[in-house]
């Protein structure tokens, strides 16, 4: 681990304030101009259990939750015990090699080779408040003193976080100062040389980035039924509904959510829905409706491990088969999988346009890891060019809603437009929208309409930007990844390069239709390794089917995201 990088972990039970403490630390670093990524390890309970929240910060690039642990804030004995244990079994997380900060009342833990800093957290907190969680703030103050960050920045974050609570925010600042000063008077800093700056960075969660990207892309309605990990986008948009002029609604179920999304888009308001795999499963029938009627819709699908309820607070990339195969019959669909928060903003804005341009479903696949962690973004571009796609003018003569075109794209009239009244139908239809499934059955028209709709994918492929790569030019070995594993894959490549392996990566964030350039990028490589956060290698199967690639698979499906050294080791085994 580099000297200009630090990893801090807050551990405790659900309800102990683990996440809030971690978020204050993360924001303090992002305000000091560091790159930050957080990682949230939690369970499907409101109180109890054992959860932790990790913050990685550095002046250099931060592309994953990272390896190593410099400072542990343990809010209970289990936290001290668990995170100092070299045999830690938290899905790939590293044990502590630095300082453990905890209340002096905690005792009887196994002594290990770390620096124990028992502190009078509760005593110091009680000077300012009787509120039990105030001791967390003291611990935050101590940890921040250990990193060398100035107190003013920490205090500005605390005031913003508790800003609306008046006296409580002042008490928290005082408590943090107690911890900060106590640590400096009694203990040594970590020795890290963090390159603090003065330019604040945006610290944003993946779900929020999806919401922000959608608004930038012209979102007017977001209809979603709550489901982890898709709810962070729903909450963000609901909180900002009036500011953004976005209508936000939780309907009776996901079936309603997608049908409403279709109805809104049909009537000319850009709309989007979101869920995880369980909710998406309920949307399946209507997905095909949008495909058949050629109505633009955007669906945000944030994956968590299945099958069924699965692991609701864990991460996986196991829904690709579902998304690719959902709904009966063939129809064009576009599947995007953002890599990080910046990509969430950019691809979601783009998805809003793609849906309109191609008049077909666009699915944005995220996962719990991406949707729920926070990370820094240097800048956010508020500008985005909105394109409503092909629309007819009022009163157009002999209007054909499903006009057969070379691109497959037809002019889409919106209710309210004069003289363009027509029927949009879930039954197969002709160019006018008139049904050909009944007395007018017409095999020729059916083929023509099917071909027209499917041609939209050819049109899209012609305009598809080239697939991005990392260190691939001179590589003997190619790793292919999709979605949220991009950052950790880059870090694994760096580790392997450091060990002398000539290896690079192909980073796919446009999953379907499959860009044929992936095949070309793989040509001549000694081995192609596909990295996936699922059991069966769903993307690997797609690549084999579409491009005939010969690949080996690296997979993880214990509910946690890959860690860089872990992934590097898994890849190294495959290239020996």
């Amino acid at each position, binding site marked *: 681990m580099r000297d200009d990088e630090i990893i801090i972990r807050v551990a405790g039970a659900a309800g102990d304030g683990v996440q809030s403490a971690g978020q204050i630390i993360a924001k303090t670093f*992002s305000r000091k101009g560091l790159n930050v990524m957080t990682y949230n390890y939690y369970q499907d309970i409101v109180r109890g259990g054992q959860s932790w929240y990790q913050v990685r910060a550095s002046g250099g690039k931060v592309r994953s939750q990272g390896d190593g642990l410099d400072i542990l804030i343990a809010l209970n004995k289990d936290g001290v015990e668990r995170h100092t244990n070299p045999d830690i079994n938290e899905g790939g997380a590293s044990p502590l090699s630095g300082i453990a900060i905890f209340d002096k009342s905690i005792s009887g833990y196994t002594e290990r080779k770390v620096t124990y800093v028992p502190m009078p957290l509760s005593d110091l907190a009680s000077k300012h408040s009787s509120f039990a969680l105030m001791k967390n703030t003291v611990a935050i103050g101590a940890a921040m003193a250990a990193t060398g960050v100035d107190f003013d920045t920490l205090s500005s974050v605390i005031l913003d976080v508790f800003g609306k609570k008046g006296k409580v925010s002042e008490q928290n600042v005082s408590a943090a100062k107690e911890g900060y000063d106590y640590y400096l008077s009694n203990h040594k800093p970590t020795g890290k040389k963090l390159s603090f700056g003065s330019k604040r*960075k*945006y*610290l*944003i969660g993946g779900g*929020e980035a999806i919401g*922000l990207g959608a*608004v*930038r892309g*012209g979102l*007017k*309605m977001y*209809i979603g039924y709550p489901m982890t990990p898709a709810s962070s986008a729903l909450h963000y948009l609901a909180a900002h*509904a*009036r500011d953004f*002029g*976005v*209508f*936000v*609604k939780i*309907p*009776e179920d996901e*079936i*309603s959510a997608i*049908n*409403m*999304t*279709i*109805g*809104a888009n*049909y*009537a*000319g*308001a850009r*709309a989007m829905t979101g869920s995880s795999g369980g909710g998406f499963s309920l949307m399946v029938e*209507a997905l095909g*409706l949008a495909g058949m*009627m050629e109505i633009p819709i955007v669906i945000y699908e944030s994956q968590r491990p299945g099958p069924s309820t699965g692991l609701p607070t864990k991460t996986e990339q196991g829904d690709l088969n579902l998304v690719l195969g959902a709904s009966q019959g063939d129809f064009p669909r576009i599947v995007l999988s953002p890599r990080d928060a910046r990509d969430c903003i950019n691809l979601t804005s783009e998805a809003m346009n793609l849906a309109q341009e191609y008049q077909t479903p666009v699915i944005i696949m995220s996962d719990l890891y991406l949707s729920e962690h926070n990370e820094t*973004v240097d800048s*956010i571009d*508020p*500008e*985005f060019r909105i394109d409503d796609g092909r629309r007819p003018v009022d009163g157009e003569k002999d209007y054909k809603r499903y006009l057969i075109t070379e691109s497959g794209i037809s002019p889409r009239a*919106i*209710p*309210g437009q*004069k*003289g*363009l*009244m*027509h*029927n*949009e*139908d*879930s039954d197969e239809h002709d160019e006018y*929208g*008139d*049904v050909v499934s*009944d*007395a007018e059955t017409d095999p020729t028209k059916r083929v023509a309409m099917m071909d027209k709709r499917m041609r939209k994918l050819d049109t899209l492929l012609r305009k598809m930007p080239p697939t991005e790569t990392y260190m691939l030019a001179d590589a003997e070995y190619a790793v292919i990844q999709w979605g949220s594993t991009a950052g950790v894959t880059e870090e694994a490549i760096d580790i392997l390069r450091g060990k002398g392996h000539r290896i690079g990566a192909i980073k796919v964030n446009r999953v379907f239709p499959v860009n044929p350039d992936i095949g070309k990028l793989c040509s001549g490589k000694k081995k192609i390794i596909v990295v996936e956060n699922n059991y069966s290698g769903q993307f690997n199967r797609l690549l084999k089917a579409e491009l005939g690639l010969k690949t080996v698979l690296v997979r993880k499906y214990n509910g946690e995201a890959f860690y860089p050294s872990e992934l590097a080791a898994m890849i190294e085994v495959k290239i020996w």
Partner: protein
Amino acid sequence: MVTVNDYSGKIRPDWCPACGNFAQLSAIKNALAELKIEPENAVVVSGIGCSSNLPEFIRAYGFHGLHGRLLPVASAVKWANRKLTVIGYGGDGDGFFEGTQHFFHTAKRNVDLTYIVSDNQIFGLTTGQASPTSEIGFISKTTPDGNIEKPVNPMTFALSAGATFVARSFSGDPKHLQEVIKKGIQHKGFSFIDVFSPCVTFNKTNTYDYFRKRVYKYEAKDPSNFEEAYRAVQEWGDRIPIGIFYQVKSQSYEDLDPVTAEETPLAERPYRKLKPEDFEEFL
């Protein structure tokens, strides 16, 4: 000047001769024309079933969607563009089997749309199976020994859910039907109209004659009296009332939601440009 001919579609309905749906198609067209609603501002959303083919036969904006799912689509059309007149149209299988949860919640939300159910007490398009409104003892392909499941009363259901306009009519009385539909469209909020619509091919029990002998025109003393309406809609047997049972004024969902409440329809508003202040909270 809008006339009923403006609503005439170029496709001839594919319903069986004398099907109850014909009367409803005429009544809807006439009601819309009488209310001077331009065809480009009328949207008819349907589900799946014989009756749900109706959007193909009317010159308006038609949406022939999925079985049971017309109300979510219709609601969102209204939210997207509150200037539009939105009519939901489907059958009893569509609305009271697969669409039950949407029926309940759309009524509760009081979305300003008119939901007309062509209630023939049978599945017609799938050639004759018992439906949620089939009576006990009803013989069909799926109930060869007679239906043993009590029929749902869509009227009490609509009232319980909180519909602000609850009415019933009969395809055998086109004048009454047209009047009720017209009032339903004029009503601001969720209007529910259950229409007895004999299936002349598969339902040999609930025929035109069956209803002609039984229906009578009900006049509510006070349409805002919930208890009175709830009692009245339960009358069944030798005498079955038709008419407007319940109507109250209540704000519609799109009036209550601050985003849809603004005058310019959502679909017609300019896109919101992002400003750096919009994401300052992340700094």
